[in-house]
């Protein structure tokens, strides 16, 4: 049960992007299209799960003084592997994500989870935490990119990342005259991010109040 709670926390309450404010740089930059967001989310999940597992497996033999360089080397190796895989099998995704795939190395979520969770817990727990946090990140970027893409272009377009000729979904939600191109620019990214973070914060305050009221009733 405790494990499941950990897993769930990463999704909503401790959502790495909107709750802990980690890894915002890539979040703001790549959320122009839903395709990018899905690709980036998948890459982050893979790196996060693998790095969490490896780090938690070697946590007892790594000396405390040099743990951060060791973590970074592990994460960088994993990111390089993922980057080469993406380059080989999804070249279109590679061009549109560009420099933000190698930059996963310095994404705070991954080092943060390694430091805060994986270096203190067992392998299975760490893997679950990695999946939870990774999914939290993915949900966050997909939500942001959905809002930004639909508002700025009016079209929701999802293609197969391994073969960009194969279009899975292409629907026009808003007629072209009524789109807001602002959301395609960095300004739109910041506004979307702030609004979603504010919404999550409001939800959390609301939930806390509810829990408090319930606790009082029980007393």
């Amino acid at each position, binding site marked *: 049960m405790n494990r499941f709670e950990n897993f769930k926390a990463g999704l909503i309450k401790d959502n790495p992007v909107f709750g802990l404010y980690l890894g915002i740089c890539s979040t703001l930059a790549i959320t122009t299209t839903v395709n990018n967001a899905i690709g980036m989310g998948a890459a982050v999940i893979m790196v996060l799960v693998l790095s969490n597992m490896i780090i938690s497996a070697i946590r007892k033999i790594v000396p405390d003084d040099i743990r951060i360089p060791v973590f970074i080397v592990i994460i960088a190796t994993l990111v390089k592997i993922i980057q080469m895989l993406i380059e080989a099998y999804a070249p279109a995704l590679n061009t549109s994500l560009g420099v933000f795939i190698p930059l996963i190395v310095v994404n705070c979520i991954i080092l943060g989870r390694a430091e805060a969770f994986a270096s203190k817990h067992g392998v299975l727990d760490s893997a679950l935490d990695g999946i939870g946090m990774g999914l939290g990140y993915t949900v966050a970027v997909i939500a942001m990119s959905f809002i930004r893409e639909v508002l700025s272009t009016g079209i929701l377009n999802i293609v197969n990342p391994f073969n960009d000729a194969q279009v899975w979904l292409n629907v026009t939600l808003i007629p072209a*005259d*009524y789109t*807001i*191109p*602002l959301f395609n620019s960095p300004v739109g990214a910041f*506004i979307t991010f702030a*609004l979603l973070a*504010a919404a999550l914060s409001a939800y959390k305050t609301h939930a806390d109040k509810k829990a408090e009221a319930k606790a009082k009733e029980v007393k």
Partner: protein
Amino acid sequence: MKFNFHVSPNLKGKQTTQQIMRDLTIGLLVIFLCACIYYGMNYGMRYVLQLFLLLACSLLTTLVCEAIYAKILKIDIKTFLKNSFGWVTAIILTMMCPISITPFALIIATIFAIVIGRLLFGGFGQNIFNPAAVGRAVIFAAFAGATTDLVTSATPTATIASNYHWLPATPEVFDSFLSEYGGFWNLFLGNYPGAIGETFTLAILVVGIFLIVRHVIDWRVPVMYLGTIIVMTAIIALVSGIESYNGIPALLWYPALHLVTGGIVFGAVFMLTDPVTNPTSAAGRVFFAMGAAILTVLLRMKANLPEGCLYSILLMNMFTPMIESAMDGNQLKIAKKVWITFACFCVLALGVSFFAGSSVEPVRELNTSSSATNGATAFEMPTIQEEVSL
């Protein structure tokens, strides 16, 4: 023994916020009436109807946004709407837009202005940025091309910025600019295309004086703002060696040109004076206005934008908390600090004017003006108006 306690503040001004806002609304509506007369006389009823349509869109959006906000926060909608004064924002925003804007763009800008610029900060009295300026900035950023087929010609602000770099140096060049818009008097009266409310310099000044006399707005802000701009542009005229025009020295006509084109008078009277985003101390307001003036001149002369008033207001709004905390405390005790800051601002203004005056190339020959730079907005005289359908 019995003590009577009164909750502070014990010293109250006679005016209520409601009265101030009512006066401000009347002032704005006077300018709106001027706009109706101008468009009615020059372009016909269709344009006047479009004016009312735009205003109605903005006002309705404001009402709906605020009602929803009050509903979510479970406040009584009627009292909230009464004390939120959203309509002032809506009217100012409408007046800052060109008439060719689509109602959709205006509605989105109003939503941004009201919801993000104002309500999310906590409603009336809590906002950091002037909400109307936020809305206008959204239109600048997002809807540059969103225009209806209601055509007006190029605004003098755009023309003078793109063709003359704000520096027509000889009487001939200045004459060729003035002749496009019917002379200096026409520019002063507001009889030329531009944003809906910002062109009527004379009417705005009259309304401004009326509002100052009624203590609705603080005289320091518009006076210091326009005064600093006049001094700075006079220095620019001296530095760049502009010639005198029909016997009037450049020292006098060049600042006047800056005042009558673009929206700085509108901004000075209706937007900079917004009591919510101003510093509260008198000294702070002076520095606020001076900083905005320096930014306006700098943006006009050196930036890509034709007009600097809007962004100078937004930027100075960010500095308001800083000015506020610097000018906090006993005003007599900090007098020395105030004068030192004042001197610093003066030096900064001097420096900016010397920089702008010496680095912008004055336009001395006429042929540069005839080769229009951007074809979309340049030189369509308002004489021929096609029958347009909405």
